[in-house]
C-alpha cells in the first residue's frame, strides 16, 4: 500500500514537471583552424602495372568559415614516367561553413595518368604524385573588447574590464587571431583604444600573398613567395589603421600588429561598455598532399 502511494506520488510529480523551453543551438561557424581538407580517396589506384593508366581521386572539403572562389589545384607528377591524361591544373570553388551549410562544401577531384614505362632491368619504380591546392582565403575574427575610459577606476562598478582576450579555438581559418590586447591610451579627458593583435598560422599549409595564391600553384616566383596577409580591423563600424599592414605570417610563428584610430576618442560620457572588434585577414593559402605509387613490371613484359 505504501509502495503504491509512493509510486503514485512519483508519477504525479513527474507529470507536473514544468517543461523547460529548449533553445536550439546555432551551429558554431567561426571556429577551427582548417580551411581546405584534402585526402586521397581509397579508390585511388596506388599500385599499377607498367604501361597501365591510373585514376587518382582527391576528396576536398572546405571546413573553414570562408568560401574558396577561383582557387587552383595542381598535380605534380614525374613526367618522365607518368603522363597526365586529364587536366593537371584547374580552378575550383568550394563554399565554406555557414548557418545553412554547417559542414561546408565538398567535392572530388580526378586525375588520370598513364605510365610510359620504367627503366629496363628494373622490376619496380616508385614515383610520387603531389596534389597541391592554392586559394585565397580570409579570416574573420570578431571579439568583444572592453572600452573603458575610466582608466583611473573611479567607478569600481563596471560592466567590463579592459583585459587581453585569448582566442584559442581559431575562427574557422588556418591563419587565426590568437590574442588581442587592448590598451586605453589616455588622450586628454578621454581614451583612444589601441589594440595589439596577434596572429598565427595554425593550419597545415603555407601562407602566401593574397594576390599570389594562383601563382603559387603555377610555380611563379615573386608574389607567391611572400608570406603576407592583408589586415582590416574595425571598431563600431569604423576602420582602424593597422601597422604593419600587410603582416608577415611565416611558418607557425606568432606575429603581432597594432591597430588604432587616432580620431576615435572615448570620453567619460561614453561610459564603460563592451564593443566588438572585427579583424579580417586576407591571404593566400597552399595545401599539399603526396601519394606514393608503385609501378611494377610483369615478368617478360614488353616495353610500352
Amino acid at each position, binding site marked *: 500500500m505504501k509502495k503504491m502511494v509512493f509510486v503514485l506520488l512519483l508519477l504525479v510529480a513527474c507529470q507536473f514537471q514544468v517543461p523547460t523551453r529548449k533553445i536550439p543551438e546555432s551551429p558554431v561557424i567561426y571556429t577551427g583552424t582548417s580551411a581546405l581538407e584534402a585526402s586521397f580517396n581509397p579508390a585511388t589506384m596506388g599500385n599499377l602495372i607498367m604501361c597501365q593508366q591510373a585514376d587518382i581521386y582527391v576528396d576536398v572539403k572546405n571546413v573553414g568559415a570562408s568560401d574558396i572562389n577561383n582557387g587552383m589545384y595542381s598535380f605534380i607528377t614525374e613526367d618522365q614516367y607518368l603522363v597526365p591524361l586529364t587536366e593537371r591544373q584547374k580552378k575550383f570553388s568550394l563554399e565554406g561553413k555557414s548557418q545553412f551549410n554547417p559542414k561546408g562544401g565538398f567535392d572530388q577531384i580526378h586525375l588520370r595518368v598513364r605510365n610510359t614505362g620504367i*627503366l629496363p*632491368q628494373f622490376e619496380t619504380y616508385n614515383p610520387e604524385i603531389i596534389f597541391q591546392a592554392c586559394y585565397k582565403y580570409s579570416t574573420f575574427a570578431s571579439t568583444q573588447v572592453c572600452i573603458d575610459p575610466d582608466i583611473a577606476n573611479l567607478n569600481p562598478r563596471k560592466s567590463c574590464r579592459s583585459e587581453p582576450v585569448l582566442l584559442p579555438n581559431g575562427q574557422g581559418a588556418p591563419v587565426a587571431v590568437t590574442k588581442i590586447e587592448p590598451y586605453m591610451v589616455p588622450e586628454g579627458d578621454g581614451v583612444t583604444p589601441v589594440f595589439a593583435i596577434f596572429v598565427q598560422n595554425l593550419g597545415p599549409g603555407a601562407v602566401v600573398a593574397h594576390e599570389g595564391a594562383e601563382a603559387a*600553384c603555377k*610555380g611563379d616566383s615573386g608574389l607567391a613567395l611572400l*608570406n603576407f596577409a592583408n589586415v582590416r580591423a574595425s571598431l563600431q563600424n569604423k576602420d582602424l589603421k593597422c601597422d604593419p599592414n600587410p603582416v608577415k605570417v611565416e*611558418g607557425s610563428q606568432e606575429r603581432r600588429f597594432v591597430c588604432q584610430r587616432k580620431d576615435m576618442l572615448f570620453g567619460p560620457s561614453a561610459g564603460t561598455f563592451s564593443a566588438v572588434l572585427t579583424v579580417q585577414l586576407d591571404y593566400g593559402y597552399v595545401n*599539399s598532399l*603526396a601519394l606514393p605509387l608503385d609501378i611494377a613490371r610483369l615478368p617478360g613484359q614488353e616495353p610500352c
Partner: protein
Amino acid sequence: MPDAPAPPGRPPAAPPPSAPAGGLPGMDISQLQNRIKKIAARHPLWAAGAAIKLAGPQATAFLPGILADIARFEAEIETQEREKAAAEERKREEGRRREAPSAPAPSAPGAPAPSEHAGADSKLWRFSKSVFHNTYDLLLKPLIPPGVGDKVLRIFLISGILAAVYVVLSKLGLRTLYNIPISGLLVVAVVLSVYQIAPGPITTFTRNLLLIFGGIGGFFALSMIPSPIIYVFATAFLAAYVGSVWLIAGRKKGAIILLVNLVFFGLLFTGVYIGMVEPGSRLHNAVIGQQQVFNDIGDFFVGFWETLWSGGRKAYFKLTGPYELAVEENSQQPLGVYLEQVGTTSQFVTMEDTVNVFAELRSRAFKTDKELVINVDCYEEGKYELKDKHGAITPRSNFTVAEDEQAPIDCNIAAFNLGPGSHTVTLEATFDFQTSSYLRGYFMEQAQIRSYKRQHPEEGANPLEAFGIADRNPIAVYTGGPLYVGMGVGQQPIAITNETYGPTLTITIDRNWPEGDLIKVNSLNIAVPPGLKISKVSGWQVDKYCSGGGDKEYSCVLNNVEILKRLFPVDETPVRLRKNIRVETMIADRGVLMAKSPLSIRSFKLTMDYNYRIKKSQSVTIKEKLPT
C-alpha cells in the same frame, strides 16, 4: 783466574746489569743477566738501559717491562735463527742437486739407471724407461747371461731401431739417399737421451731438438692419415703445438720453435722438397695437402679482407661521399656469372696425360632484352700469351644465356705442353654486362627554398616537407651485378636560380662483387631530365655524343673509343676501381624543367655496358711417371 782478554776487533760488550740494592724478590739475577747479555749483541742500547733501570731503586717497578722486552727479543732471535737455518738447509739442498748429475748415485741391482729425466720428475720418461727396462728384464735378461751380452744386446737393439726407422721413412716416401743419415740421427738422439751415456749438454741438446721437431713430427704423423680433411687438423695441431710451447716453456723456446716451423713450412711452398719426397707417397700427399690448406687459408683471409675493405669503403662513401646508393630489389640476388666447384680430375698426371680442370658455369638471368654471351678460356697462369699454354674448353667456349643456366665446363691441356712440375691452371669467364641506375631529383626555385628555410630556421628543415614528401633525401637505385653505380647531385631539393648552370651529377663506379675485374667499359649512357643539357663529362666536351632536348630527356651515349679512353685510360686494365665521373649540366629550358609547378620531380638515368671477368685457379702436378 783473570778473565781472558777480549779478542781484538770485537766491540765492547754491554756491562752486565748489577744487582739492585734491595734485590729483586723472587728473581734469579744471574739468569736475568744472562738473558740480557744474549740480547745485548743485537740491541746494545736497550741492554744498557735495562741495566741502569735494574740497578736503580725503582728496579721492581721496571722489572715487568724489562721482562716483556726480553721475551719479545728472545722470540725475535729465535725466529731469525730458524730462518737462517732454513736458508742454509736450502742452500745445501741446492748444492746437492747441482752436484747430483755429474755423479750419479749408485743404484740397486736391477733398478733402472737414474736419469736426468727422473731427476726432472718426468713421468713419461720414467714410464718409458721402466717399460724398456722391464721388457729387457723380463724377456731378454733370462736369456742372456748377466754381464756378458749387455753391450752386445744394446748394439743389436740400436741396430734394430735404426733399421725400423729406416723402413718407416722409406715407406713414408722419404728418398732413399737421405733416409740412412736421417734415420741414424734420430736413433742416436733417442739412445742418447734414454741411456744417459753422453754427458749432460748433448742430452739437453737432444731434448731441445725433439722439442723443436716434435711438432713437425706430429704434424706429419697426422698428415699420414689419408683424408683430405685431416690436413686442416694437422695445421691446427701445429699451430696449437707452437702456442703451447710458447706458453709453457717460455717465450724464448717458443720463438725458436716458431721460427723453425716458419722456415720449414716456408720451404713447403718452394720446390726444395721436390727431390726429397717420392711423388705419390703418403708424405708427398701430406705435403701437397698442406700446401692446399695453406693456400685456401690464404685465399680466405684475402677474400675476407677484400670484403671488409670494400664494404667499409662503401659505407664510408655513403656517409661522406656525394652519392648514396640503394640497390634494386633483385640486386641482392646473385645476378651474373659464377665459376663454381672448380676442381681437377687428378692432381697428379704424367707427361703423357691430359690435365683436366673442370668447373660449373652458372648464370642468373637479369631483366634485359640482351642475351648474355659468356666466353670461357683456360691457360696456365702467367702464360696467357703463349698459345700452347691454353687449353681446350668443352663442350664449348661460348655460352649464350637468357635464363638461369648452369653448364659444366672442362678445360683440357696436354700435360706435355705444361711440362713436369707443379702448375696453376686458370679458368676464366668473361662476359659483357649492363648495369643501370637512376636518381630522383626534386627541383625548386632557390628563392622558394630560402623562403622556406627562413621560416623554419630549425636544423634539418627541408622544403620538401611542405609538399608531404616522405623520401626527402633520395638515393640512387641500381641494378645488381658485378659493379655498383652510384649517383649524386648534392643536397636536395636542387636549387634552380636565374643562372644557366645546372646541377652537377657525380657518378661513382665501384666493385659490387668481391671477385672479378672490370676489363673494359663499352658504353656509358647518361640521361638528364627534360630542360637540362649535359655540357661536360669529367671536363670533356661531349656535345657530339648527345641528343634530345626540348621536352624530351637529353642523353649522351658515350661509346666512342676516344671518349671512353679519356674516361677509362687503357693503361688501367683491369680498370682500377673506385672511379668517379662528373657530369656538368646546363639549364636549357627552365619552363620545361619546372613544368609550371613550384616543385618538379625528375630522374637522372645511367646505363653502363662493360666487360667483366671472373677467374678461378687450380693447381696440378705433372710428373714423369707415376710410382708403381
